[in-house]
């Protein structure tokens, strides 16, 4: 049996599509050269200044600014060469049915150019030195081809996990996410190749902390409350974001996000919801604009107007951590972002800045795992006590 027969059809289709796009895009470059022009790659600028918040669609998107990277431009020449080099390596990997990681690509493209100048001095120069450089070239190729790395079958480390009453097909296998034991299904780097077979759930709960995810899993939270339980284990990777987006978009499941009560937790939520600044070109495919911030919110801790706090005076004394300068600074930054300028977020940020207090999700499990699973979360979802 040849190795091809093990390979999933969806996978093969993806490769064909990516190869086709590569040929089309780079044909343009060759045409420029044929005409004797300066070969030029036009790319949207990936800078904060060229990142736009689309208020209607509630997404962080790349702005209209383009940069042209020309081979016969002294300062761009090397980047141009790197782009062609990376494109070739990815192309070859696609053709050979390989699944390189970004680290593989870094090593494959790290060549030494040896040249002897007229006059005899010998020089050596690497095509790139650090992975930071080759990673940046991968992002350039994503925006140039309009293909995300997942679509080019480039793998990254799996970080996100999922359990729930759901069956999926991946690489030809059907996997039952309710039969993972104490473990969980690692969300694969190419979530677009996953097919949803069937699902019996009412909502998706994404937990920032892996430890809290495991605790909720072990007490059967997802079974009892008909939830798909996911953790991003910190900052979400692209695969987790894409997976969550698909659950929301294709299955219509509401998505609730549970993070620490601090500016870093808030930002994790915003990455799920509207995208990240560094990868704003992928927002359209990765962001989940309907995602809701379930907590832990400042009003949960301190109460607000008629809302009663979930913690007692004594518990606050035990669990609250004093905010550090970096937290305060980050809060001020977030306050400047358009997408944090809603009424509810203003209240959150103001309370935080006033109290200079933050709290980890674990504080709620300390108060009692059952409290978190059977009171706090169901009550908040039922009463609509979330921020959008």
């Amino acid at each position, binding site marked *: 049996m040849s190795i091809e027969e093990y390979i999933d059809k969806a996978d093969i289709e993806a490769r064909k599509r990516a190869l086709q796009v590569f040929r089309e895009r780079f044909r343009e470059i060759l045409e420029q050269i044929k005409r004797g022009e*300066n070969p030029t790659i036009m790319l949207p600028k990936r800078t904060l200044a060229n990142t736009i918040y689309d208020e209607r669609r509630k997404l962080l998107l790349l702005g209209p600014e383009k940069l042209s990277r020309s081979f016969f431009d002294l300062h761009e020449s*090397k980047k141009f060469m790197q782009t062609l080099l990376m494109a070739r390596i990815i192309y070859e990997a696609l053709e050979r049915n390989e699944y390189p990681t970004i680290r593989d690509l870094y090593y494959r493209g790290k*060549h030494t150019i040896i*040249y002897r*100048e007229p006059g005899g001095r010998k020089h050596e120069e690497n095509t790139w030195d650090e992975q930071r450089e080759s990673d940046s070239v991968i992002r350039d190729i994503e925006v140039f081809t309009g293909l995300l790395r997942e679509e080019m079958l480039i793998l990254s480390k799996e970080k996100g996990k999922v359990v729930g009453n759901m069956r999926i097909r991946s690489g030809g296998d059907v996997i039952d996410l309710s039969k993972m034991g104490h473990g969980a299904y690692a969300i694969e780097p190419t979530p677009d190749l996953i097919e949803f077979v069937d699902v019996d759930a009412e909502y998706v709960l994404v937990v920032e902390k892996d430890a809290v995810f495991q605790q909720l899993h072990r007490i059967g939270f997802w079974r009892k409350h008909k939830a798909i339980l996911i953790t991003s284990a910190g900052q979400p990777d692209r695969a987790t974001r894409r997976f969550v987006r698909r659950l929301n978009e294709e299955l219509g499941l509401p998505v609730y996000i549970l993070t620490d009560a601090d500016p870093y937790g808030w930002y994790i939520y915003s990455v799920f919801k509207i995208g990240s600044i560094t990868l704003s070109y992928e927002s359209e495919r990765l962001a989940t604009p309907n995602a809701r911030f379930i907590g832990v919110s400042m009003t949960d801790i301190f109460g607000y107007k008629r809302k009663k706090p979930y913690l007692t005076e004594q518990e606050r004394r035990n669990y609250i951590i004093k905010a550090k300068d970096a937290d305060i600074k980050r809060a001020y930054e977030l306050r400047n972002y358009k997408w944090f300028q809603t009424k509810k977020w203003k209240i959150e940020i103001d309370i935080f800045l006033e109290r200079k207090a933050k709290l980890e999700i674990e504080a709620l499990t300390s108060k009692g795992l059952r409290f978190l699973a059977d009171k706090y979360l169901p009550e908040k979802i039922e009463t609509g006590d979330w921020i959008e």
Partner: protein
Amino acid sequence: MSKVQEPLREKYRSMTPSQFFYEHRELAGFGSPSRALYQTIRELVENALDATDVYGIMPRIVIVVEKLEERQDFYRITVEDNGIGINPKYVPQAFGQVLFSSKYKLRQARGRFGLGAKMAILYGQIKTGKPVEVYTSPIGFTKIYYYKLKIDIERNKPIILSYAEHDNKTLWHGTRISVVIEGDWSRARSRVYEYIKRTAIATPYADIVFIDPEGNMITYWHSIEKLPRPPKEVKPHPHGVDIEQLKRLIRDVKAKTLIEFLVSAFQGVGKRTAEAFLKWAGLNPSLDPHRLNDSLLGELARKLREYPKFRPPSAESLSPFGPEIIEAGLRAILHPEFVVAVSRRPKAYEGHPFIIEVGIAYGGEIPLSNEPILLRYANKIPLLYDEKSDVAWKVIDPRSFNWKDYMVVFPAPVAVLTHIASTKVPYKGVGKESVADVPEIEHELRNALREAARKLRLYLLQKKREEEAKRRVITFVKYTPEVAKGLATILGDIDEKTVQEMLLSAMKRRLRLDDEEFAKLVQGLEVSIEE
């Protein structure tokens, strides 16, 4: 001659010129044994050059300095040239009597009045008791004449110790002179070498051989065949005359009236000019010049200097190097990557014509330095001492001249040659080592430097452009293999080599280079990729 001499000359009227000059030997550059050694070589070499290139002969000069057995600090200095030689009749006076010279006429020459060589003889004789020995044969003479001479200092007369005639079968012409002096080679060494090097820069048409007391020989062979234009002898210009000169002119010129005298003694003065001048000066044209008393002579000299309508002085008496010689000299000795030289048009100060020349050598073997290396010449003589007090330094000093405007940023590999050719170089002292700040000369130096520096700037600009073009080409060419391989692999229907060729032709078009220019830029460029 400088002004300080006038009162001194009054005071020492009773001394013979020999006594007077010996008393003041430090003014002439014989103040110490090391300085005297350097000065002796210099005086003899300059006389040798004056006997050759001025007369259209390509100089071949041999300089030998030997240590004598008998005394550690006695040195014999021998200089031989292939010049016009000296008529044997005049040899005793030429070397044995101070103030006798063939150079009393007005034209640019390296030495004046032949004083320097006689100072060397005088100095040597007093310090070592040794006579001077001379071999000479003028052009076309069938004999070589030999003299051994001393100077009778008390009476300023030559004493002939020995005389001989030899057959001149090869029709050799020239002069070979040997003097023994008290010197200090170890201290003079670097100056002497520097002097000879700088002389060689100024005379790229000469062959110069130097053998030092340690037996080292250094040679500078000529790199061009062209000699500088020899100076013509001209009559003095009325603006440049003083009472002493006036007296000598009246004595030498056979004229019975003042008007006749003016017309025959001075350049650019015809009958009409002389009449107009005398009318302006209120002097009777029919006066006998021989009968003028000192006060009238003084009046005449002053009026001659002040009359504004004389024609400017003639520059025919001057012998500049010319740009070709300066460039050849700088190239041959300094091995720079670029040289440029300019000769300015003649100008005058106080009735003395002068020409300023400036050469700039850049890069190559010239070492980096925080200020320009200055090579000063006056009437083709290199000047080594007192550089920083010279007007030439004042002009090229980076604090006063904006080298940056000409793309020279220090430390830079740059040497500047300056030359003042004049019938009278305004030296700061009798030592003739630095030139005074005469405004006209300073102005001309600055203009000449700017003119030369502009050409240097053009060169540096061109070079910078070429380097940039080269840098571009190297950058693009070294990345071409990866780009070509990338496109060929992805597109599949075109091979790497074809893409490379297409890239190179697009590159040439982009950089506006034709095939030949492009080939020149990438000649020797090799690129390989290690995967």
